[in-house]
């Protein structure tokens, strides 16, 4: 058991190493953004607390559930291709893409409401951070969906196999990063106050 565990724990990072350099770079950027948000808030706690009340937290909750589930779908896609089932892999990815689309729709509805409320980059410090963070993340979801779409297309075309599915793992790793970042963002912007 222990021997098996140690063997199993020496695998390389899933997917192409290049994506991991990018993932760590992106995590650093988000990390700095989160830190900036946190310290800006500690300097303007009242402003942040008041402005946070303007957000509709249900949007945040819905999007977290959606993104976590889509991440789970991507896990299933990876497991499918490891079992050699290309079509199932494609189906799971399309499911994840559909959920990604739901995320974007919810976020756009929220942005629409925000704009109607007069929230803008120059309105106040909280709005600036809220919009920057969520828009920056929004763009990552778009980017992640573009990657997943390519991977899904290739999966249906039978370009991946049990032996060679680095592409699936590469796309999956990026998508999980997008999920991970949102989980922190959700807590920071929508929940903690």
């Amino acid at each position: 058991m222990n021997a098996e565990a140690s063997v199993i724990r020496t695998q390389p990072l899933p997917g192409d190493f290049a994506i991991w350099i990018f993932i760590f770079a992106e995590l650093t950027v988000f990390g700095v953004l989160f830190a900036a948000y946190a310290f800006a808030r500690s300097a303007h706690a009242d402003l942040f607390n008041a402005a946070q009340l303007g957000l509709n937290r249900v949007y945040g909750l819905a999007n977290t559930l959606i993104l976590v589930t889509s991440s789970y779908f991507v896990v299933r896609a990876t497991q499918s291709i490891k079992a050699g089932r290309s079509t199932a892999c494609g189906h799971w990815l399309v499911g994840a893409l559909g959920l990604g689309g739901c995320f974007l729709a919810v976020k756009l509805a929220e942005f629409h409401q925000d704009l109607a409320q007069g929230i803008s980059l120059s309105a106040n410090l909280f709005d600036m951070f809220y919009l920057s963070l969520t828009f920056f993340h929004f763009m990552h979801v778009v980017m992640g969906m573009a990657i997943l779409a390519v991977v899904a297309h290739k999966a249906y075309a039978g370009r991946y196999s049990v032996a060679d599915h680095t592409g699936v793992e590469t796309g999956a790793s990026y998508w999980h990063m997008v999920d991970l970042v949102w989980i922190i963002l959700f807590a920071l912007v929508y929940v903690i106050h």
Partner: protein
Amino acid sequence: MQQVFTKAMARNIFLGGAVFFLAIYLALTYDTWQRIPIRDHADQMTPAVLRGKYLLDTNDCIGCHTINGEGAYFAPELGNVYKRRGPDFIKAWIQSQPTGVPGRRQMPNFHLTPDQLNDLVAYLQWLSNIDTNNWPPNIQG
């Protein structure tokens, strides 16, 4: 098992990252473009202000001075010179150049007409009212 690290993926990340961050920058620029006219009172850019600006540009003032910190560091900041010195001093100063004081930094005489001096001052006045996030830290620029 060997870690996979392909050049094709590195290239894709370069291209994807470039397009991605360019899109972010363009979106921000779009917002900035809407905001700038409010922050610098673009509605107050009268023909005199624009003529004054043209004079500053075509006499290479930023070859020695800075405007809002941009230019050369040989001579004082012009962004707030209107508030620091006032219109009359500025006109008199420009007309009295060069001072010819031995060893001291010299400013050429640009042979400006009284009308041109008025335009120049109008531009400097407009310049001094831009919202620059409270920069410079004090009147000395």
